[in-house]
């Protein structure tokens, strides 16, 4: 594949977490009964007047600031005209010539490398309704609850050079949106969606090849797979001397392929024109200053702080900061007195595993950060062994029991009393005469065998250091 360079630009649609829609006061809640949050404006009745949601503008400005975009003093809304049953107005209200913000950048980390991805623009627009197609009947059902809900579209420069970079960029954007509290970032529910423009060009060539636009990818894994498939498909075409057709292709997650989407939008002629119903967006300088002053700590800053202050590796910091709730959990565990490196390890292995199995968000886990800190302290103090800690972790996670009380109730405390361990050590040596002889004959590797035997006899509760010490004394 080295003969071609992959060129990717991404268009991300993020649903803003406002209370109401972009141009009317209908609720922006997800998951309601169909068509309950619909009014004359968002159902496209004639003669209505859209009025812009102030909060949506603020949220869009926050994102613009977070990724270093220049916010235009004045930006205008435009109508993007097309007919489809999920679009009752017959046009989407979007921004065309003058978007809200332009020329931003997102820093991403792929493996050990850092890269800056350019952002062309951020603009505000309203979303379409939802169509439900029934295979059995000859109808489609239209739900307008989503019609008119606020989106920002974030368009990247064609700076991405592969699926891995594309996913890293998306994860970073999503993390920023969630940290800002302006989008819930839920890809499955469609509040964070992405279209990918993918093309190949012969290595060393400056001019871009013909691109295909990929849609319908609702997880990071889908994005990765769809791009990988598309890159291979285009490389095959070019190898055979064929042309890539500029078209929209849908990702089929079941088959793992991209399929040409004929019809609907092939003839792009949206006849954009400025929307006469809406005045330009003008955000006062004082308001921008206040928004900027109120920006929270963003993922990158948090990551750098974790590395600098907690001494954890950059890769661990990346994992811990990708979900804001997980970063909050980590910090709460530290506040409860847990050692940073140990807390990071427990969270990234045991905690994340149980969390994913249970399908929970970090904040919803019964095992609170304080309880995790308590567990780590039990191990640090030698009250239980690390091995026991791992064994009881799933139980503690599910029950939310206090680790100290749990250990006491189950009698799992580590045996650190030499007199209590001596019997087990003696018994172990007594039943392995042959090994003892071999050890004394120079096979010192057998030490591990003896330790294991003592551990077995004490159900893993023996203090390993002490066992070693006792064995050394008795065999010496």
């Amino acid at each position, binding site marked *: 594949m080295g003969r071609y360079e992959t060129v990717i630009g991404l268009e991300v649609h993020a649903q803003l977490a*406002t*209370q*109401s829609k972009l141009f*009317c*006061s*209908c*609720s*922006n*809640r997800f998951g309601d*009964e*169909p*068509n*309950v*949050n*619909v*009014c*004359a404006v968002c*159902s496209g009745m004639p003669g209505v007047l859209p*009025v*812009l*949601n*102030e*909060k*949506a*503008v603020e949220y869009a400005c926050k994102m613009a600031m977070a990724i270093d975009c220049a916010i235009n003093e004045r930006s*205008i809304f435009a109508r993007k*005209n*097309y*007919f*489809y*049953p999920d679009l009752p107005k017959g046009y989407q209200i979007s921004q065309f010539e003058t978007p809200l913000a332009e020329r931003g950048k997102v820093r991403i980390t792929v493996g050990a490398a850092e890269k800056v991805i350019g952002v062309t623009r951020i603009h505000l627009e309203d979303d379409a309704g939802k*169509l*439900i*197609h*029934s295979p059995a*009947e*000859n*109808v*489609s*059902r*239209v*739900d*307008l609850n989503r019609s008119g809900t606020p989106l920002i579209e974030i368009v990247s420069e064609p700076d991405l050079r592969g699926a891995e970079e594309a996913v890293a960029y998306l994860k970073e954007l999503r993390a920023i949106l969630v940290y800002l509290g302006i989008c819930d970032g839920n890809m499955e529910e469609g509040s964070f969606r992405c279209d990918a423009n993918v093309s190949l060009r012969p290595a060393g060539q400056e001019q871009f090849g013909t691109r295909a636009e990929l849609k319908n990818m609702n997880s990071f894994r889908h994005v990765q797979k769809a791009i990988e498939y598309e890159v291979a498909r285009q490389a095959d075409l070019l190898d055979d001397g064929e042309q890539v057709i500029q078209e929209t292709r849908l990702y089929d997650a079941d088959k793992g392929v991209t399929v040409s989407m004929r019809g609907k939008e092939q*003839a792009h*002629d949206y*006849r954009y024109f*400025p*929307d*006469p*119903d*809406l*005045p*330009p967006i*003008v955000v*006062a300088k004082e308001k921008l200053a206040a928004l900027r002053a109120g920006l929270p700590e963003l993922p990158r800053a948090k990551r750098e702080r974790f590395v600098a202050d907690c001494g954890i590796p950059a890769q661990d910091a990346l994992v811990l900061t990708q979900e804001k709730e997980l970063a909050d959990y980590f910090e709460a565990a530290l506040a409860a007195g847990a050692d940073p490196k140990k807390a990071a390890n427990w969270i990234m292995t045991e905690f994340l595993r149980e969390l994913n199995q249970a399908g929970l968000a970090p904040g919803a886990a019964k095992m609170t950060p304080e309880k995790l800190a308590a567990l780590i302290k039990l191990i640090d103090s030698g009250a239980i062994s690390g091995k026991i800690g791992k064994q009881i972790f799933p139980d503690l996670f599910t029950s939310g029991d206090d680790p100290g009380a749990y250990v006491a109730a189950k009698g799992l405390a580590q045996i650190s009393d030499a007199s209590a361990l001596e019997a087990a050590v003696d018994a172990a040596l007594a039943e392995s005469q042959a090994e003892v002889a071999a050890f004394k004959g120079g096979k010192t590797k057998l030490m591990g065998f003896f330790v294991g035997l003592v551990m077995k006899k004490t159900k893993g509760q023996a203090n390993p250091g002490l066992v070693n010490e006792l064995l050394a004394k008795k065999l010496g």
Partner: protein
Amino acid sequence: MKITPERVAAVAKLARLTFTAEELTRFAAQIGDILAYMDMLNSLDTTGVEPLYSPAGLAGPTGATRPDQARQANSRSETLANAPATDGEFFLVPRVV
């Protein structure tokens, strides 16, 4: 700009309209006349004049937005009252995929 019947047909298609050949020719002439009037406006020198995209802009930047408060405007039955076809929950349209 010269408007041809073909151009009218293309725009009509985007608007989901069907015209006879006679109509295409007639509308081409009429739309051409309207655009000729625009050409007349274009002959004015507007150098240095900020385009007025919307008369709404004259109201100024204040009061052009609303606070983010949600309220229910209509019940579902009101929303669906004028629908040509509905199952009581959704608008029904001819199947599109």
